């Protein structure tokens, strides 16, 4: 123990701390300053940065005793309530806050830079900002907005970057910060780990550590006997269904007979502290009989391969997905040039900066029993009553979490409540069950609140990733540059459990001929079970993978045809009236050609060259396009419900609340829902509160996936608002003394022949006479048809084109993306500021896919065991991004909008490798690009590289078409 005296945010602090305690622990746990966030505890991510005597340090590895006698500044000390620090204001204005988990660290690191520069009478340059924030990561924004925010805060006149859009409505189309951003920039936003309940226990999970094994016995007696351990649970303690899964129920809550990947959960422990829980894990003895591990999708389907899930008719084949249109043999006969290549994409990791956390609170929980009280306002406005078992979690699918937890407990769904907390990024990685069921079981078993926080390392080990694929693709075209046929075979590594593999790889398959008019298509995709980490949803949802293959082949073909790469694409683009590979006729909202034209125009201004050399640097442009469905599609019922309630204060004061369980992962949904509701009600968006994700208070918004929420929940909110004004028409009719049928509602007033009455007055009258001022609407998206029927698989598609300017260092093979010109057809920009954030963040995420990211597994064990081994793009990777918004409205979308969450993160990787080819003459067929292999190929005059970084084996040879 040492005595620690320091000044934190101008407040003197004096406490005794163990020598092993880190500053972050003192701040968050001892002082309750939870504005400082933890993303890794490895000194890697930088989001825990605080200032010690004005100097930024990562508090997670800064020994607390070292802070003795210093002045510590955290985000909470930056501003008083009505006075934002210029950095906070600028982050708000520039949309540099998305999920917000990195924001405190970003702002504090930037503050140190600004203070230092201001002291010297200087303003920071872009390089200064990039150097200062080099190791402070953000997974959401793509950093361009961060850079301009820091410039603005230093007094430079930098307006937020907001692309031109069609003229705005009353609220729709206006660039505004997300309503929850204010709490995030102040460090007041609560993520799951920021909640504390008196009497709370801490839980940990025993993970298999072996990829494939039969469980002989599990002995928990020693762990149970350890002082401070309150519960140790195994499969025997799961009272209800010991399985979960979004599509297939194949994933054990706690493994009983077998483990199928090294992250499988075998037992869970709740104890008085996390360290006791960790000790208890070490005391659990599990006998394993190890089995041969299945390590990749291609070998998984070999006869004789070890079987991951016994008893399935198809062995390790999770699904064979087929797309067929026309007759490819005919198509290839018509082709003058055929390109046939095999590509490989890596397993990748979402690396949301907030690791998974869940808290279970038992029914009847009373904090007073533990000598405490619970902050009633903590759960976003809803009183914290715990009349039933409650699970606090940042989840992409709250209702499904509720149902799955209830099933495991053997209860009815309505006996469980899920309270969605803020989510520090999701990107698809928070759809499957993580600790939700475990904390429910443990809090029942102990009758105490139980928190289960995953370390970064456990998060890496456990959660579903993006599928690794091998894609062979054969593309044929006539000498006039018309595509005649595409044949492809995909192998997708689904890992140990189904998760969303079937859906994800279906999207990879249906999008495998690109956004083109191709008469003959045949695609076969084999989704396989292996003993790798399960794979599931990840922004791009399979299309990221097939787009890389499709757009690489397109460039190779263009070159062979002697055609300009842009022109070749333009001759084949999908348009209204044309038909997709699955037989869907496009009837509206295909803005692809406009996207291409806008990007092409920018790329080609001045004296354009595709490639050139400056000194040792090889520069080149690369181009790629993409499309991505909005919504679940394929015949799945796609609906969302929203509830809108109104209250009137005195005079014209009016407040609305819109409620749904659609989830905010940082993409800006609250801003969209507030705008849609406000537009319909004719009230300012700032009067609309958005309550998300509480299953006892919010109707089901369905899963937040497939870029669907703007479309479905935007529509639900819009319709709910309209239903509410319909509901209030009779009241208005009475007040206006007319037949309610004659009353019309627009611009915030009920009107009849020259006479009008405001919404506020009507709501007041309704409330006064006990008439409810709340309405709910269940919105059903247009019906879609299953794959194979030839009907409409999707109700809308987003389109985009991107051009990237790459620089390849001719001495080292290092690749940098210098510039990106992008155009995205989003139907309608409901909020151009948050939309631009999605675009920039998506592009930079895809730069990571191309250049840095690979979750490496060797013999089905993760080599990527720590964050230090998985680099996502940092601020140094940020190119300058020029963004065009194209708005070809879709008739059923809210105000014409379609989804955009995934689209920008899809084509950048292919555009980059296309640029690398032009710059160096080397075609890279495996991601991420390995500068070592690239340089050796350049030196050796080799034309193609098939090893990406982390690959030890060449791409497996796969045949086209048939079954294996």
């Amino acid at each position, binding site marked *: 123990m040492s005595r620690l005296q320091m000044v934190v945010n101008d407040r003197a602090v004096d406490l005794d701390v163990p020598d092993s305690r880190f500053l972050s622990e003192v701040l968050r746990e001892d002082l309750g300053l939870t504005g400082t966030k933890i993303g890794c505890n490895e*000194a890697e991510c930088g989001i825990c940065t605080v200032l010690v005597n004005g100097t930024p340090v990562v508090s997670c590895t800064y*020994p607390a005793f070292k802070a003795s006698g210093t002045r510590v500044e955290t985000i909470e000390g930056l501003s008083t309530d009505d006075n934002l620090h210029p950095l906070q204001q600028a982050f708000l204005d520039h949309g540099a806050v998305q999920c917000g988990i990195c924001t405190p660290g970003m702002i504090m690191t930037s503050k140190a830079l600004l203070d230092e520069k201001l002291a010297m009478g200087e303003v920071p340059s872009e390089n200064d900002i990039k150097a200062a924030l080099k190791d402070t990561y953000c997974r959401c924004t793509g950093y361009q907005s961060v850079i301009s925010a820091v410039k603005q805060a230093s007094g430079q006149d930098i307006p937020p970057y907001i692309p031109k859009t069609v003229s705005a409505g009353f609220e729709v189309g206006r660039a505004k910060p997300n309503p929850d951003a204010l709490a995030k920039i102040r460090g007041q936003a609560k993520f799951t780990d920021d909640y504390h309940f008196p009497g709370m226990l801490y839980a940990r999970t025993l993970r298999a550590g072996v990829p494939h094994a039969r469980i002989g016995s599990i002995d928990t007696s020693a762990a149970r006997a350890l002082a401070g351990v309150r519960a140790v649970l195994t499969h025997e303690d799961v009272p209800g269904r010991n399985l979960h899964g979004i599509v297939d129920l194949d994933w054990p809550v706690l493994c009983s007979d077998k483990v199928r990947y090294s992250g499988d959960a075998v037992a869970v422990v709740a104890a008085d502290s996390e360290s006791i829980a960790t000790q208890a894990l070490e005391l659990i003895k599990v006998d394993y009989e190890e089995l041969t591990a299945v390590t990749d999708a291609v070998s998984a389907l070999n006869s004789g391969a070890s079987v991951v899930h016994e008893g399935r008719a198809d062995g390790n084949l999770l699904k064979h997905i087929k797309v067929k249109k026309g007759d490819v043999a005919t198509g290839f006969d018509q082709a003058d040039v055929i390109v046939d290549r095999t590509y490989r994409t890596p397993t990748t990791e979402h690396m949301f900066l907030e690791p998974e956390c869940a808290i279970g609170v038992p029914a009847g929980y009373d904090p007073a029993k533990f000598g405490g009280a619970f902050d009633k306002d903590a759960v976003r406005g809803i009183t914290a009553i715990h009349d039933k078992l409650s699970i606090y979690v940042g989840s992409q699918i709250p209702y499904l979490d509720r149902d799955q937890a209830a099933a495991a407990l053997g209860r009815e769904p309505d006996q469980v409540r899920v309270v969605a907390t803020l989510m520090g990024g999701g990107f698809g990685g928070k759809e499957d069950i993580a600790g939700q069921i475990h904390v429910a079981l443990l809090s029942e078993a102990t009758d105490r609140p139980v928190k289960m926080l995953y370390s970064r390392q456990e998060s890496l080990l456990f959660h579903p990733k993006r599928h690794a694929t091998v894609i062979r693709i054969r593309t044929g075209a006539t000498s006039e540059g018309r595509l005649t046929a595409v044949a492809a075979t995909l192998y997708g590594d689904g890992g140990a459990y189904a998760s969303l593999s079937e859906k994800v790889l279906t999207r990879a398959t249906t999008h495998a001929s690109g956004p083109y008019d191709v008469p003959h298509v045949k695609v076969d995709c084999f989704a396989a079970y292996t003993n790798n980490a399960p794979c599931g949803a990840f922004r791009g949802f399979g299309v990221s993978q097939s787009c890389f293959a499709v757009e690489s082949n397109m460039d190779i073909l263009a070159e062979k045809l002697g055609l300009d790469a842009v022109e070749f694409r333009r001759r084949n683009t999908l348009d209204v009236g044309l038909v997709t590979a699955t037989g869907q006729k496009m009837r509206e909202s295909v803005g692809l050609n406009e996207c291409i034209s806008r990007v092409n125009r920018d790329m080609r201004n001045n004296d354009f060259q595709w490639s050139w050399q400056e000194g040792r640097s090889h520069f080149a442009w690369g181009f790629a396009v993409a499309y991505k469905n909005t919504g679940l599609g394929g015949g799945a019922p796609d609906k969302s419900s929203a509830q809108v309630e109104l209250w009137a204060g005195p005079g014209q004061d009016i407040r609305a609340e819109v409620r749904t369980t659609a989830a905010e992962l940082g993409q800006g949904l609250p801003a969209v829902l507030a705008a849609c509701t406000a537009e319909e009600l004719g009230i300012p968006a700032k009067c609309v509160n958005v309550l998300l994700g509480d299953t006892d208070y919010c109707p089901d918004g369905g899963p937040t996936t497939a870029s669907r929420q703007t479309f479905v929940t935007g529509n639900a909110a819009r319709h709910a608002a309209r239903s509410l004004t319909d509901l209030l028409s009779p009241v208005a009719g009475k007040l206006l003394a007319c037949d309610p049928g004659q009353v019309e509602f627009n611009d915030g007033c009920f009107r009849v022949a020259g006479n009008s009455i405001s919404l506020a007055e009507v709501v007041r009258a309704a409330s006064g006479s006990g008439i409810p001022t709340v309405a709910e609407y269940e919105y059903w998206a247009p019906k879609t048809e299953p794959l194979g029927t030839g009907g409409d698989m999707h109700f809308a598609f987003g389109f985009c084109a991107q051009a990237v300017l790459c620089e390849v260092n001719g001495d*080292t093979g290092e690749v940098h993306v210098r510039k990106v010109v992008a155009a995205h057809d989003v139907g309608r920009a409901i909020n151009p500021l948050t939309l631009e954030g999605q675009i920039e963040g998506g592009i930079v995420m895809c730069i990571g896919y191309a250049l840095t*990211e690979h979750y490496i597994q060797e013999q089905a064990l993760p080599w990527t065991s720590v964050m*230090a081994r998985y680099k996502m793009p940092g601020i140094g990777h940020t190119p300058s991004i020029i963004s065009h918004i194209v708005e070809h409205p879709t008739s059923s979308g809210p105000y014409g909008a379609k989804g955009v969450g995934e689209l920008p993160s899809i084509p950048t990787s292919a555009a980059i490798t296309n640029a690398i080819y032009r710059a160096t003459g080397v075609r890279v067929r495996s991601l991420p690009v390995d500068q070592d292999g690239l340089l050796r190929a350049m030196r050796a005059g080799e034309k193609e590289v098939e090893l990406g970084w982390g690959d030890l084996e060449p791409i497996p040879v796969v045949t086209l078409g048939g079954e294996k």
Partner: protein
Amino acid sequence: MVDTSRISGLDRISIEHDHIVIGCAVTHTQIVREQSIRRSGTCLVESCGVIGGPQVRNVATLAGNVAHAMPAGDGSIGLLALNGEIEVADAAGCRWMPLQDAFLGPGKSAIDPRRALLTRLRFRPTVAGEASAFTRVMRPQGVALPMISMAARLQVDGDNTITAVRISLGPAGPVPHLARPAMDLLKGRPAVLQEFKKAADAVLASVALRNSKHRATREYREEMIRTQLPMILTRAAERARGSQVVPQGLGL
């Protein structure tokens, strides 16, 4: 754990006799900001300036980098080219020893932290006609260690003849490597690119570079020595001939 930052005097950089002396609690940030080292120990500034990010450099020390004994610890490579020394304090007292003697193997330091402390580090600043330079090649992927890291200190006379030279690099064996054959070759030769290329060949002829999984291939490392070593020797020579010294690559 000893918090060396609290031992008085060890958090300072000073000039003593012919040496620049760096206390073991001195952070990389302090080194990077120190004008005397920027000018007269440039390769150390360039090597400490690329370690981690600013938050790490604000806390991590050169002493820690040396005590880590990684074959390509950047600060160690920089200090080795400068012919650095370290002071070790134990029950028997304090003594200075050559930096090389601190390294026993990958991650194995001669200083047993239970019994001894690395208290200070020092080197002779470069003088007129003398300068240094450092570079490293890094991957953008999840490998915290450089693919290769190298530094050179070089002195030329009025005829542009090399009168003294040291070249360090890593990883090239179990400990930070001093490229003696290349140093011997260059001594007395003109400081021109052609000679520097020969020196690179001499390095390649005398060290056994390795493939390290997910980090770098042997061929790649050889190629980096072929192109990057002549580049930093050239840079050091230009600085030695009096061109203005601007440390390169800081904060990258």
